[in-house]
């Protein structure tokens, strides 16, 4: 159960667990029973929507890894698009899995089919290097005022030293080492600090979205 929760942040299973405390013991036991992929998909095909949501949540990291391995040169949002195509296919074809059989070979075959298909369809378009369009693209303006204001709001969420580091690397284009040296950090420490700062920033962004 905790494993599932760790894999799927943002999903409202935390709520499910809380409400489980209010349920009779028998139902609580049902919630905690066998959460193998097979069991989840079997329940999903019986019409249990929550089990299906959980199934898709727990297979998503694996599917992401499959997609990333094949298309690491694709931008993250396109990889996520492909993931969504795979999830949709899993939904549409979920009845072609036969209960009693392992889910993984079935799932991987679907993923392979949809991923190959997705890359075949977009491969030719997306793999063009951006340099080819350099003279077609308007020159990037020095960040719009609004974006700068957003940046300041975001950077105010973390401590000033980390903010300085992020500003130097992300906005002024310095390397982590250069930025770290200015703050008296070694190269390794600078990279770690930058990584932590980015993580805190994305968490802060997540909080602000809600």
């Amino acid at each position: 159960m905790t494993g599932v929760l760790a894999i799927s942040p943002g999903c409202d299973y935390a709520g499910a667990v809380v409400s489980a405390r209010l349920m009779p013991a028998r139902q609580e036991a049902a919630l905690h029973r066998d959460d193998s992929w097979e069991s989840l998909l079997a329940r999903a095909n019986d019409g249990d929507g929550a089990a299906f949501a959980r199934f898709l949540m727990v297979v998503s990291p694996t599917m992401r890894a499959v997609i990333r391995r094949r298309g690491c040169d694709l931008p993250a949002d396109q990889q996520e698009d492909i993931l969504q195509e795979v999830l949709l296919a899993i939904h549409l074809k979920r009845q072609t899995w036969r209960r009693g059989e392992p889910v993984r070979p079935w799932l991987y075959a679907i993923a392979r089919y949809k991923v190959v298909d997705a890359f075949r369809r977009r491969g030719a378009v997306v793999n063009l290097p951006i340099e080819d369009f350099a003279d077609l693209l308007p020159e990037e303006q020095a960040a719009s005022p609004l974006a700068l204001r957003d940046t300041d709001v975001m950077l105010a969420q973390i401590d000033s030293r980390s903010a300085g580091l992020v500003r130097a690397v992300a906005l002024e284009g310095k390397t982590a080492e250069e930025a770290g040296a200015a703050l008296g950090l070694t190269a390794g420490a600078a990279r770690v600090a930058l990584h932590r700062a980015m993580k805190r920033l994305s968490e802060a962004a997540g909080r602000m979205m809600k």
Partner: protein
Amino acid sequence: MTPKRSTEDLIRALAGQPVPAPWSPVATLGATLGAGALPLALFLALTGVRADLAGAMTQLAVQAKTVLPLGLGGLAGALAFASARPGQRFALWPLALPLALGMALVLLRLGIGPEATVLAEWVGSTALVCLLSITALSALPLATGLVFLRRAAPTRPALTGALLGLAVGGGVTAGYALHCTEDSPLFFMTWYSLAICLVTAMGAMWGGRFLRW
């Protein structure tokens, strides 16, 4: 909205959808057999089953020209259904067994039969009728089977279509053999095989186009 959040929204939306209707192998089999039996029965009713059917059925070659395509069709049908589910393992080599048995009959005929009539037996006199009848009679069951297989999830659509074509071609050929009076293995191993190959190619082509998902 970040991509991951939109994925979570998609998952929530999918979980709220009704469970899609399952693919039914039984319904697919029934519909394909029905769509095949109907035109075949009509064909046999119009052109007639061979007059000497009961007597001829005692000969090995006559039995073989119905039994071998029927066996091939059954095997291919089972494989087509297996290939329609993602992640199923299946081996294609059993399909070579009917072919091998048929080739054994050809060799037997060449070994012991009269040499003078080999060419006449091979070319026969109804080769074109045979090719046209089998392919025409196969079109409807093949299309029907493909329509039903769209519910399934073949990860190699052209292969699944080809196997279905092989199954339908085999079944129709077994029925056509009840009408055809050319009993030399030289004839039927050439022209029946060619007709079944045509239907298989048709299945591969249609499958590659219509079974994608």
